[in-house]
């Protein structure tokens, strides 16, 4: 037993759930590349761009899932924050691009905080809380006394704002992508290296134990939801800058893809487990599926939803199977 320290490959796989996922992603990529030659060369930038908004929301969703909660109001917050900021820019009240982002994050954080307070101090199931707030904030968008808004058009936005994320790039990547990278890095550092970040895991894996240890669990829960709301608000401004349009129904239903990306990335919906690396790969996989399906065959659009569902299922099953195999091998190796 000279190499006692060396870990077998299975346990590495278990510790790093994102590795099997990466294998699944590579497999799908190969499959698509066979069907659509030169796919990756043409589309990699589009995958990154289209996936950025979801990626940002995934970071927030990760925080919420870690404490064993969930937030399905994120796309409603996206539409609301984007609509409010867009309306203000349309009326000329805001001209500064930076202010737009600050406002979007602030609106999102406010709604997220409300979610968090209701969920933690109010003790209402987060699914119901966020379902309610999602209806409410979406319904606020066309209200006469608030925004009275039908739709934000590109003409209502300043050129500087419309150019901000798409037409500025650094190292070949547009700011839109860099913004997502920035949010990922901040979230990663926060979760791994700060006490508060570690407390999210503590609250999610065993709230009572965390409380015994003196973790302010309700404050942590509110914080997680506030972060999630803030990323959704930011996503709203990113959406507005990318697509130059937003309306009441924008991104309706897309919150499920955010959750799917997190689950693909190995985040436990029961709380307490999840890594930013896995989430990044999960979000990339969703973006990749979204981009690849239309290219697989024109005229087949009627069954794209079907293919999307199947691909998601295959991805998650493969991930689970690989995980199981690795775990079994690990147990077998330890003669259990």
């Amino acid at each position, binding site marked *: 037993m000279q190499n006692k320290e060396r870990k077998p490959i299975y346990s590495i796989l278990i510790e790093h759930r994102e590795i099997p996922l990466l294998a699944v992603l590579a497999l799908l990529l190969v499959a698509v590349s066979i069907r659509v030659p030169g796919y990756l060369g043409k589309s990699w930038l589009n995958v990154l761009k*289209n996936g950025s908004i979801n990626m940002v929301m995934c970071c927030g969703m990760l925080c919420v899932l870690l404490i064993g909660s969930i937030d399905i109001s994120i796309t409603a917050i996206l539409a609301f924050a984007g609509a409010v900021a867009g309306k203000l820019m349309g009326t000329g009240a805001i001209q500064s691009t930076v202010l737009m982002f600050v406002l979007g994050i602030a609106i999102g954080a406010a709604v997220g905080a409300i979610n968090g307070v209701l969920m933690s101090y109010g003790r209402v199931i987060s699914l119901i809380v966020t379902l309610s707030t999602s209806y409410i904030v979406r319904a606020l968008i066309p209200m006469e006394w608030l925004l009275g808004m039908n*739709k934000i*058009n*590109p003409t209502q936005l300043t050129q500087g704002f419309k150019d901000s994320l798409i037409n500025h790039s650094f190292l070949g990547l547009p700011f839109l992508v860099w913004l997502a990278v920035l949010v990922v890095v901040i979230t990663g550092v926060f979760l791994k290296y700060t006490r508060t970040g570690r407390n999210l895991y503590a609250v999610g894996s065993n709230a009572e134990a965390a409380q015994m240890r003196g973790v302010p669990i309700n404050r942590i829960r509110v914080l997680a939801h506030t972060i999630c709301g803030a990323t959704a608000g930011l996503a709203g401004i990113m959406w507005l800058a990318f697509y130059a*349009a937003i309306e009441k129904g924008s991104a309706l239903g897309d919150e499920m893809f955010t959750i799917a990306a997190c689950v693909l990335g190995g985040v436990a919906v029961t709380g307490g487990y999840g890594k930013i690396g896995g989430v990044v790969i999960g979000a990339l996989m969703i973006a990749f599926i979204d981009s690849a399906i239309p290219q697989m065959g024109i005229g087949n659009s009627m069954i794209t939803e079907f293919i999307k569902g199947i691909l998601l299922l295959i991805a998650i099953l493969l991930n689970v199977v690989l995980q199981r195999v690795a775990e079994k091998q690990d147990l077998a190796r330890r003669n259990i």
Partner: protein
Amino acid sequence: MKKVLALVLTLMLVLSVAAFAEKAGEGITIGVVYKQSGNAYFQAGVTGFEQAAEELGFEFMHDGPDDGSSDGQIRIIENYIAQGVDALCISANDPAALVDVCNEAREAGIKVISWDAKVDAEGRDLDVEPASAQVIGVTQLDSIVNSIGGEGQIAIVSAMATAPNQNLWISFIEEALNSGDEKYANIEYVGTVYGDDEYTKSFNETQALLEKYPDLKGIIVPTTVGGPAVCKCIQDAGRDVKVTGLTLASDMKEFIDAGIADETFLWNPIELGYASSYAAVALVKGDFTGAVGEKIECGELGELEVTESDDGGSILFLNKLNSFTKDTVDAWVDIL
């Protein structure tokens, strides 16, 4: 004596001419009902009624429910019946729901015309609609053929794969392309993709089209939601692809000004109101019954012919689409 006689005769002639010049709609009252109050589209429709009222001399009242409901419309119609209007012009929120109240009106001797959105055949005398499916399809095709200079690849980005209107228009486009007409000889139609009337889906499908067909020259978007998404995608990709379709002026102003779309279309609600007025007056006066094959003179719009509708009733098509170009789009942004 002869002089007196001549004078009297001349006077009679003048008087008779004056009497003849009395406006056709004098003494007629029309009740106009639209889908929802405060909607700019229907305000434009009312403008059409105003224009016709000036020419024909009829009176009209107009109203629509706040909530866009059928029962709200029924209350308005009952109110008009009680006031003893001569004709009703209705843009129905539900084709079947208004049949009973419309028949009640017809029993009271009131002529019932539906415009913009039909009342079912058994409840109306005539339906006035913008254009036949063939005109809508072929107008868009001819426009894109013009835009791209008569040769190159074109594609269609539609709404849902199951959308009946869009599919009908597309079938007429395909029929025209296959007709062997000289002007389409150098056009290669690569197919239709479906954006499901979702902004991001339309955007992603367009991205895939652009990547799959590097020589693509034009895209037809026969749906208002898809239009801006397709244009934004082309703008970001920096490709020289022209767009046309059925769009709102406010959505497209940016892209028409940027030269991505030379010309897009939508029907003109003003003309719909105008033609409905002429039809209503003629029906009330009894010199027109609204039967299939009958012709009617509609002022500036010229002579229009009644044809048979899909539902077996009679329908009057204006067969004219309103086009938005660099020169005209500004006048429409606040209306459509």
